[in-house]
């Protein structure tokens, strides 16, 4: 079923010995402070043990000491590339727990910002993946366009990277007056650049050679490990929380769930996972276009429903949403006070990383970097 990459050199003739080497935690290609203990036989990876905890920032314990609105900035700092998406499941879950129904306009704004942040995240993921493969130019192009999205976020929330924008019951501020126009500008620029990147990077024969038939993740293994997001969809499984369990207003919008098809190599290889991200950007653009078309002109008070004192009734809730990296969920236990009794995060990257030892055995050590890059992990979320 899974065809391993053919290596021309006959390693049975080469005198090799097994050794254990460390990669990280300050290696630039590990996408953060991840240490990989790699067991190699010659240049072939025989085992990988990820060591985590270099960025453990005590999120879950700190939440027990915070009031509910104070938790949001800490959630921002979990997956710091897609902060808007991180806030979403928590805020939606808290609203469900407290019985607040936010108006459609706020939901539309939330969707628009979540999709914009999804684009920004995928741009960074594709850019750094290209960087791992040795392609520096797409990095510059994609980061140039990412600045446009960050500028819009900055106008809305005041932060370039960490926003604290979605509040329980509403938003921090209303969108800037130029919101619609800027969204349209971003969409047209993203589409133009994506076309360039498709030609420059994704369709580049060197890049294709480097990524096809590497790190093949079969669908059954993906399901067994519980991975989600582009990693799961890259293996050909049609599972997207926006479609299967819609939240906000996603059920009223028209978009496709992108799945890998194994166009270049085997289904579920690094190239497939990457192309899913590229195509998801286009789907996000489609969603934003529909939001702009339906966006009400008159402004409203976005803080009208924000409770003065967030004190949910006794109870518990698990709230999840489709993060750019996969399913992010928060399990919130309330004991009726102003502080959460327990806060548990189902971190996407943590689950996605767990599949790394399974899919990287038998490949060259340089392919390990590509496999790790294609998983698109963030250590802030893994260690929390």
């Amino acid at each position, binding site marked *: 079923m899974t065809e391993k990459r053919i290596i021309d050199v006959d390693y049975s003739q080469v005198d090799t010995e097994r050794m254990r080497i460390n990669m990280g935690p300050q290696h630039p290609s590990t996408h953060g402070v991840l240490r990989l203990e790699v067991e190699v036989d010659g240049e072939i990876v025989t085992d990988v043990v990820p060591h985590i905890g270099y*960025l453990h920032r005590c999120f879950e314990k700190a939440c027990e000491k915070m009031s509910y609105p104070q938790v949001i900035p800490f959630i921002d700092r979990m997956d710091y590339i897609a902060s808007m998406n991180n806030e979403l499941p928590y805020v939606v879950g808290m609203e469900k727990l407290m019985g607040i129904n936010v108006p459609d306009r706020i939901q539309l704004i939330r969707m628009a910002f979540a999709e914009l942040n999804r684009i920004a995240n995928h741009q960074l993921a594709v850019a750094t993946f290209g960087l791992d493969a040795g392609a520096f130019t797409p990095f510059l192009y994609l980061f140039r366009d990412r600045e446009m999205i960050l500028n819009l976020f900055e106008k809305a929330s005041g932060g370039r990277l960490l926003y604290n924008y979605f509040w329980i019951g509403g938003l921090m501020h209303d969108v800037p007056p130029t919101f619609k126009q800027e969204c349209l500008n971003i969409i047209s620029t993203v589409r133009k650049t994506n076309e360039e990147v498709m030609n420059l990077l994704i369709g580049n024969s060197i890049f294709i050679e480097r990524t096809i038939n590497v790190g093949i993740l079969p669908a059954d293994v993906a399901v067994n490990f519980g991975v989600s997001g582009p990693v799961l969809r890259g293996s050909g499984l049609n599972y997207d929380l926006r479609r299967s369990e819609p939240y906000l207003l996603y059920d009223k919008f028209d978009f496709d769930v992108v799945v890998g098809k194994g166009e270049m190599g085997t289904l579920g290889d690094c190239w497939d996972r990457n192309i899913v991200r590229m195509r998801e950007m286009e789907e996000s653009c489609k969603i934003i276009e529909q939001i702009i078309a339906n966006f009400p002109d008159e402004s409203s008070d976005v803080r009208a429903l924000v409770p003065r004192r967030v004190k949910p009734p006794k109870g518990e809730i698990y709230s999840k949403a489709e993060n750019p990296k996969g399913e992010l969920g928060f399990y919130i236990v309330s004991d009726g006070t102003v502080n959460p009794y327990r806060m548990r995060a189902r971190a996407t990257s943590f689950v996605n990383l767990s599949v790394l030892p399974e899919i990287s055995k038998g490949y060259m050590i340089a392919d390990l970097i590509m496999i790790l890059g294609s998983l698109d992990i963030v250590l802030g979320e893994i260690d929390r």
Partner: protein
Amino acid sequence: MGLLNRLDDPIQGDGIILGTVEDLLNWGRSKSDWYLQFGLACCAIEFMALNAAHFDMMRFGAIPRTSPRQADFIIVSGTVTLKMADRIKTLYEQMSEPRYVMSMGSCANTGGPYWEHGYHVVKGVDRLIPVDVYVPGCPPRPEAFFEGLVKLQKMISTQAIFRKREKMSAEDLAALELRNKKIQEYNERAAQENIEFTNAKHVGYSRYSLDFLNKGEQS
């Protein structure tokens, strides 16, 4: 402040620069400062944006190096945890003199939002290594980071190499003494900690286990 500005000087001018060897050395040192990439957390993403097309950090002469042995200064960008503390110090010790440290972001400066309840967070990287420039922000804006970088360049360009102390301006002297004091404190502490570390029998003992937490709660 630059050496080349003197070319337009009415007295020197005409392609002639009068100055000391120290001026020339410091000019070269301050305009080509290579840094060690040490991205830890959120600030590292902002740091990637700094290196990308829009902000283009290389125009300041700062080029990323991946090895501490080639670097002039280290930029600690992000939350330093107890597990990371040993490594950060090792990297700093591997750098060759003269070496400088920039602390980027609230977490590296003081512990940031994790100051109060972060049981695994070192409350400021200056408890590990002597810091020269602090850049505030969570994360700092790229412009704020550039200000910090220019401050560091200014510091390098006015540093005394050959000059006698009597001839230095009061400002430069104070800066030099502060730096020397920090480095001396660091060396003393490092020597002490090394003794403790070698004497420790306990397996898995970290040099930075609970010390920093206690300090954080006292202050």
